[in-house]
């Protein structure tokens, strides 16, 4: 019987090689890949997220953990294809137009993928219309937008207005984040949710769709 807590621990330490080795070993011993994710990887990421939010961890630690998570998910991908991947919701995510900062957004996308969300990552410098088109096409439950500059934050408000004009606003929850973004600003532009940091993104998205 695999000890999933060791996987969580390796991920918490940002040790990619160890996380991958333990994931492979667990899979080899017959463990269910979904259990490996839930009790190993997600548990590890939750710990990392909490430590980031509390100020114990910083961005390099988050990046190390996200890297380990990504590598472990790649190990699990073939097995997950066989068992099917249950998803709890669809998220379209991206960094707004004019903004080339995607680290936080990438970390959040990895966290969400590892927590059962189907993630459509549009990358960075995403035009407003692209967000709107993708929300419609993918029938997204959540739209996540990131802005790292005070100069690009207002673009998030323009996307929300665009969703309203396209008649899509009521069908999708909008979550915003990024270093200069605040809860006040999220309220000001009419977003549904605000994640103060990458560590909070998963619980916020879960709450918004009631999962």
């Amino acid at each position, binding site marked *: 019987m695999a000890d999933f807590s060791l996987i969580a621990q390796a991920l918490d330490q*940002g040790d990619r090689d160890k996380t991958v080795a333990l994931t492979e070993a667990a899979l080899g011993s017959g463990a269910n890949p979904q259990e490996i994710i839930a009790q190993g990887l997600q548990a590890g990421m939750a710990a990392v997220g909490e430590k980031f939010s509390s100020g114990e961890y910083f961005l*390099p630690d988050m990046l190390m953990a996200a890297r380990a998570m990504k590598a472990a998910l790649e190990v699990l991908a073939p097995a997950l294809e066989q068992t099917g991947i249950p998803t709890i919701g669809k998220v379209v995510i991206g960094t707004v137009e004019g903004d080339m900062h995607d680290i936080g957004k990438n970390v959040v996308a990895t966290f969400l993928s590892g927590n059962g969300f189907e993630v459509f990552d549009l990358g960075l410098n995403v035009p407003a219309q692209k967000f709107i088109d993708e929300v419609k096409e993918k029938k997204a439950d959540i739209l996540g937008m990131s802005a790292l500059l005070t*100069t*690009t934050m*207002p673009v998030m408000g323009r996307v929300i207005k665009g969703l309203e004009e396209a008649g899509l606003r009521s069908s999708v929850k909008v979550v915003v984040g990024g*270093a200069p973004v605040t809860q006040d*600003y999220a309220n000001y532009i009419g977003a549904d949710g605000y994640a103060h940091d990458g560590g909070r993104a998963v619980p916020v998205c879960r709450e918004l769709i009631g999962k």
Partner: protein
Amino acid sequence: MNAKTNGEKPDLTPRRRFLANLMGGRKGKRISASNPTSVACVELIEKVGVHFPEAHTDARAMAELAAAGYEVLGFDTIMPEFSVQQEAAALGCEVNWGNDNMMPETMTHPVKSPGDVVIPDNLLEKPSIKVVLDAISLLRHEYGDRVAILGKVMGPWTICYHTVGVEDFLILVRLDPDQVRAYLEAYMPVTIAIANAQLRAGADAVVLPDHATGAMVSAGTYAEFLVPVHHRMLAQIGGPTILHICGKCLDRIPDIATEGYDGYHFEWQNDPKKAVEAAGGQVSLLGGISNIEALLQGTPDDVHRQARYNIEAGVDSIGPECAISLQTPLENLKAIIAAAEEGY
């Protein structure tokens, strides 16, 4: 009390007012209002008729838009550099210079190892560096008798974000600290050379953004990697120097205060009272007014409230905390000056 002056404080020119505040000197009638980072916004751009990207790439356009910070808004300083990408462009990154609604961005990160770092012999002649030097010279000629002219040069940590890429660089803090040190060592001469060239061109002081912010790295990382580098750089930069780091930094202000900077440009999210306490009089504090809550979303009254809070806290020179949002209303910026004019 001196009978001749009735104890009244002298009314200093903007330049003297700012420099006195920056260097911890005598106080005049009122605090200076300064902009160590950009105060260009769409309303100002339209008023002056000088647009982006020309104001990033043409010295005369750059100087004209920058001067509006003094002419139209009434700041005591003129800051001609609106972007943070000038060094990146000179060091081989592809830069999109943007437009009135988008600030410039680095599109490529060509450096993969410290061995890839090449500093061009003609660094100061590179267009993105020379344009700032020329704009400073123009401003010195036109305004040097009354307004403080500021230069700006990125520190080695920020240069790495652009040339190496933020993610690839930051992860090295955990994976390979020696490589981080090697990068900083390699880029330090770039910062020193440009800072001194700007001082020679006529800048009264240089602003040195080095974004090791609290949202990204710990105070321990700051102390380990940045403090020794900043100490050495400052021994070689020949004029007043202002550090700019956005975000939460209260935990590292005690370190910043001992590095040898004359000023530290800080954000509102560090409570100004606590920031003044942490600085302990060893470095002047500038900025302190929230770009989002007050300047973008707030009213002139909100700005006034924050400005007065900063003054009462003992901040040395008030202004926006960072490069302002392009949609910032002019009346909110003018409220900073109005608050300063009320005196101490």
